[in-house]
């Protein structure tokens, strides 16, 4: 397979094609415009359709409609735009429709800024929309992973009949790295979706809906959805770095921050410090069990994010008071340097009364 040097955004676009998606609906917003830009020229080349909708609300409802018709569909946006998709996301989850949503986070709240951020973690993992729904959330840290996750996202979306979010930031979107793509799937070779509204010729009509006025029926559906969300645990993913043996501090970070933390770990390991990294790859389902297990071998935990402390809540929940969990965040579009993480870990070790080698 040929290696290409590609921008994250464009690689995500190509990966969607590769996964057999032929429909993109979206509305422009920095810093993810390279995705619609790429697909606006690429979709027609493969017989697909690119629609710039009149708003993110419209784009997300087009997603609902096209998904209901059984097609692999994708949209992408950034923070304010994703907020406008909250209602449709809940509707898709309620109607059990597969769809892929690429959320390239920028600094908030409000208009905020256009620089990288991870402050839409709550929105993605706890549900920006209403109701008891969850979406699977994949958080790639490299362009290759962005490609792999996008392809997987379509598979997971179909497997679970549920929206899947790719959660990344402007760094991953703008960065170029070498990538390879698997053999593309032809849309016509994808498994059939017997539930889709494809024109009810010769069969019972299918209904795609999320309205259940009978509370007993809706309650039953709600608990079925919970079972589905729990089943997603079988696809939980995480990554560890220097966590085979006991460590004094375990850093927990995802996406871009995990990369920075890895550099910091290298620096500290060179200095003889016992430090490792736990990286959630799926942030919903969150790798709570694996994290709790890893924490058993750590003196303390440092959660580092580009937010004021969102994943932190899931980390604390997983560790359930068994280890001290501290936090280091940079926000507003600023990134932490590896050196800052080294400083934080050193300070934490000193507070814990551990000697810094």
């Amino acid at each position, binding site marked *: 397979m040929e*290696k290409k*040097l590609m921008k994250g955004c464009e690689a995500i676009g190509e990966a969607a094609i590769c996964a057999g998606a032929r429909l993109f609906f979206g509305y422009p917003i920095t*810093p993810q415009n390279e995705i619609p830009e790429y697909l606006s020229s690429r979709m027609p080349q493969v017989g697909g359709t690119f629609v710039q909708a009149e708003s993110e609300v419209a784009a997300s409802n087009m997603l609902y409609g096209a998904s209901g018709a059984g097609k692999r569909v994708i949209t992408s946006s950034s923070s304010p735009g994703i907020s406008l998709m909250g209602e449709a996301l809940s509707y898709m989850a309620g109607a059990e429709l597969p769809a892929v949503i690429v959320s390239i986070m920028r600094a908030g709240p409000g208009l905020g*800024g*256009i*620089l990288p951020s991870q402050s839409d973690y709550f929105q993605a993992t706890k549900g920006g929309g209403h109701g008891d729904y969850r979406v699977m959330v994949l958080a790639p840290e490299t362009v290759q992973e962005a490609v792999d996750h996008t392809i997987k996202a379509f598979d997971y979306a179909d497997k679970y009949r549920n929206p899947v979010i790719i959660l990344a930031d*402007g*760094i991953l979107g*703008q*960065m*170029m*790295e*070498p990538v390879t793509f698997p053999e593309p799937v032809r849309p016509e070779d994808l498994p059939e979706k017997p539930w889709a509204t494809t024109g009810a010729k010769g069969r019972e009509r299918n209904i795609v809906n999320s309205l259940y006025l009978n509370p007993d029926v809706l309650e039953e559906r709600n608990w079925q959805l919970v079972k589905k969300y729990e089943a997603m645990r079988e696809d939980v993913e995480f990554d560890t770095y220097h966590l085979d043996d006991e460590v004094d501090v375990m850093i927990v970070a995802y996406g871009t921050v995990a*990369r*920075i*933390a*890895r*550099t*910091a770990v*290298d620096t500290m390991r060179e200095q003889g410090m016992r430090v490792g990294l736990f990286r959630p790859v799926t942030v919903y389902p969150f790798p709570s069990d694996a994290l709790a297990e890893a924490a058993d071998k750590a003196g303390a935990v440092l959660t580092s994010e580009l937010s004021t402390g969102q994943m932190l809540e899931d980390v604390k929940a997983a560790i359930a008071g068994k280890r001290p969990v501290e936090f280091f965040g940079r926000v507003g*579009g600023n*990134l932490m*340097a*590896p*050196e800052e993480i080294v400083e934080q870990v050193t300070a934490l070790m000193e507070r814990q009364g551990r000697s810094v080698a």
Partner: protein
Amino acid sequence: MQSEIILAGFGGQGVLLIGKLIALAGMDDNREVTWMPAYGPEMRGGTCNCTVVVGDKKIGSPISKRPHHLIALNLPSLDKFEDEVRPGGIIVTNTSLINRRPKRDDIKLVEVPANAIAIEAGSPRAANMVALGAFAAASGLVTLEGLIDVLDKNLAKNPKLAEINRVAVSRGYELGRAGA
């Protein structure tokens, strides 16, 4: 061993392109590479920069506050990044547009009149290629052949431009080797 390089100039000088060529040459050499453009407010005011990282193991941060090397195509770029370069690193300056020497004496300085040489090579727009060649020679990070190879691949449709760039990068390479 990992090298972090900041390439900076004003918009239109082609720093993003020469960054990409280093990354491509590194990739062809089976090394790990990242290329990261500055975006957002940094882009305003006509300055433009990107960070390229080339290494032998998985690359952490694709941006760097302590780059090993700097290629500065104009004065504001030198002003902005000079202090960040690690001791012992290379600073390539484009003396056609930069009328001062770096204040640092703990770096390896490579001065090239990039615009002047580019004009000789056939196009004033090839100044970035001259700087690229000089950096390649001084750092040894990528080879001249590697660069010419990716140039040819990238400019297969425009052999005339490819030729100008080949000349410019080669002239830069000679200067960089001489300066080393």
